């Protein structure tokens, strides 16, 4: 999510053009599956880890897994925003790779095409995985992907600023409001979050909405309205900037790194950027505050899932399944989680992981109870996500009360 969100606008035209040609290419497709029949010597892999350091991390990992399975890996890494266009184009020309990585909320759309094989067909299983993880990769009762690591968002706080103001990291909404107000001074805001007109805004709002019992199947509910009221209050009181409606999560991170915000809602993928831009910044991370003390935090799950497209070649698919199994082994999960500041998805690994990576404690804690965005609505999630960010935006900009904004959005 974090990656896609940041890139939504960039390749607008590239995506459109690529898809426009998809139909034309379909006519000339058909080949590309390669050496069917003979022994499998190489596999094609498609993912969107095209930036360093991820690019190298995954290249090394895939090569190691390939070696184990006795095949060479032909990997292609495309920019995040053009992955879906590429996949649809390949689905239409029957040139899908043997192993395909998908951002987890996109799995529903691609599984709906029928282009993926259930992983159970190849003896893989998601036993022992966190529930939210499995539901993200499940379409109409069948599991289509395995996700080695996940992430979510938490509350980052500037240790020096909180200490100077005599504030402890907030645990409830009331504490959050009080802390944000107290930490606001001069051109510094108490809190920064991201509420732009895209799915990134929805993603950031979900923990507030879900932890208060809100439900994406009908957002015109008092629970969601209360969560939205919290955001509106934070902005109208001046504790958060009005610019939140145009900030991406990367922008939020800039504000926090530059000391223009004492706290922010963000994810662990910002660790490297923070270390680079503000090496002296001392900060901690706690779970996102809940409505009242004792309430359960329900955060959204991020991360990518690995799938097995139907290439029509049984032998190749079996080998591909070996690669996916290798990508999801206990050792790989722990390594990836450490290297990419993310969280393993097998619940049995969590305690050991926190002991090894204490900075990830808050995120790991949240993953246990976190939910998948597509868990309830499946392929209908994008429409609901649009309604949520639209309502959030019209309430924050003062166009309507939270209640009215949500009702308006729900009725579309």
């Amino acid at each position: 999510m974090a990656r896609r969100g940041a890139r939504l606008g960039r390749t607008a035209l590239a995506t459109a053009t690529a898809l426009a040609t998809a139909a034309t290419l379909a006519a000339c497709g058909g080949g590309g599956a390669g050496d069917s029949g003979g022994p499998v010597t190489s596999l094609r892999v498609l993912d969107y880890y095209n930036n360093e350091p991820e690019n190298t991390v995954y290249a090394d990992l895939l090569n190691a897994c390939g070696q184990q399975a006795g095949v060479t890996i032909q990997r292609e890494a495309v920019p995040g925003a053009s992955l879906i266009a590429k996949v649809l184009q390949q689905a239409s020309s029957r040139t899908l790779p043997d192993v395909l990585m998908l951002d987890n909320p996109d799995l529903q759309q691609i599984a709906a095409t029928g282009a993926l094989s259930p992983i159970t067909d190849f003896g893989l299983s998601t036993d022992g995985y966190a529930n939210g993880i499995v539901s993200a990769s499940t379409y109409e009762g069948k599991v289509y992907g395995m996700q080695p690591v996940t992430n979510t968002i938490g509350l980052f706080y500037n240790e020096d600023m909180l200490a100077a103001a005599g504030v402890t990291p907030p645990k409830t909404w009331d504490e959050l409001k009080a802390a944000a107000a107290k930490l606001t001074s001069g051109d510094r805001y108490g809190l920064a979050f991201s509420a732009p007109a895209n799915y990134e805004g929805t993603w950031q709002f979900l923990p507030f909405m879900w932890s208060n019992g809100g439900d994406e199947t009908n957002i015109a509910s008092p629970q969601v309205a209360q969560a939205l009221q919290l955001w509106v209050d934070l902005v109208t009181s001046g504790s958060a900037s009005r610019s939140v409606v145009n900030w991406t999560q990367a922008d939020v991170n800039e504000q926090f790194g530059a000391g223009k915000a004492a706290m922010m809602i963000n994810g662990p993928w910002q660790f490297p950027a923070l270390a680079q831009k503000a090496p002296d910044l001392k900060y901690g991370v706690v779970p996102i505050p809940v409505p009242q003390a004792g309430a359960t935090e329900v955060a959204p799950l991020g991360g990518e899932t690995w799938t097995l497209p139907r290439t029509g070649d049984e032998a190749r698919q079996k080998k591909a399944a070996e690669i996916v199994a290798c990508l999801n082994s206990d050792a790989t999960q722990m390594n990836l989680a450490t290297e990419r500041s993310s969280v393993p998805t097998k619940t049995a690994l969590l305690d050991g992981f926190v002991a090894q990576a204490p900075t990830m404690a808050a995120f790991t804690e949240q993953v246990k109870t976190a939910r998948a965005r597509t868990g309830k609505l499946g392929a209908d999630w994008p429409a609901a996500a649009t309604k949520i960010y639209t309502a959030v935006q019209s309430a924050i900009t003062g166009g309507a009360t939270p209640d009215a904004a949500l009702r308006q959005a729900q009725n579309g």
Partner: protein
Amino acid sequence: MAEEGRAGGTTARPPLLTVVAPDPPAPGAAAGTDRPGRAGWWSPRGRERLLQLGFLLPAVAYLLLFFGYPVVQNVVMAFQEYTTATFYTGEAPWVGLDNYVAVLTSAVFNQALVNTVLFTVGSIAGQFVIGLAIAVFFQRRFPLSGVLRSLLLLPWLMPLIVSGAVWRWILDQDNGALNRFLGGVGLIGENPGWLTSTSLALIAVIVVNIWVGIPFNTTILYGGLQDVPRELYEAAALDGATGWRAFRHVTWPLLRPVVNVVLVLGVVYTIKVLDIILGLTGGGPANATQTIATQSYHLSFQEFRFGQGAALGNVLIVISLVFALFYLRANRRAGQG
């Protein structure tokens, strides 16, 4: 009028057709058509005709493949439930007018339509007036005028994603260069949210689009101005028409064909603007900058409702077509007059 042939194109075509038209009906051919009979193709006239068709063929093939096919595909797609699954299965159930009903009755449509009109009219008015003023200004020769004129092209040459990012930074509410400047000279008390207030965002987006469009307008209009014969100004000056009156009675009438081209191309280019809006606001806040183009993009590529996205795209095509017809009419009138 030297400009006529270059700008219109339509005036250049009739002579080509008149070569063909007087072809007398071959014996045996149906009355009223000039189609040569079977043997007629090998007559000198018929061969010439074949040759003409041969020259047309590449252009026609190109147009059909790269313009005709996508447009037809888009029209068909709008009547189908076209989803991600369609790409794999090829199945796209026919749904009649459902997609049109869905997009035309959605809450966003009216706002998107109004925004599209305001965005287009505002952008064109700004680009044209400023572009024309600059073009007229550069008609005078002065030191460095050539250098300055080329510098004006800069906004046109920059990738829109880059200029979008820079403008987003300039227009930022709290730390943007614009608000810092306005605050510094004491023009504003409270920082206006150029991109974050629902009442200002559309204006800000229009201003940026004007900035992007000025070089195009200036370049074409400047070219048109160069073709206005000098001696006309001298003659006008003798009759006492200088300055504004010379512009009104000499420059403007002779520039009209170029103006037509600039305005129609401007409308067609502006109405479909996507990257600038996506880069600046993403259609927000609260749909304040949502246009039919951005909404169509969102439906197709964010919500994967390709059928509905295509339906909105067709609405856009129809609007562009209406303008193209206006253009053709205006051009024909100019040709007759």
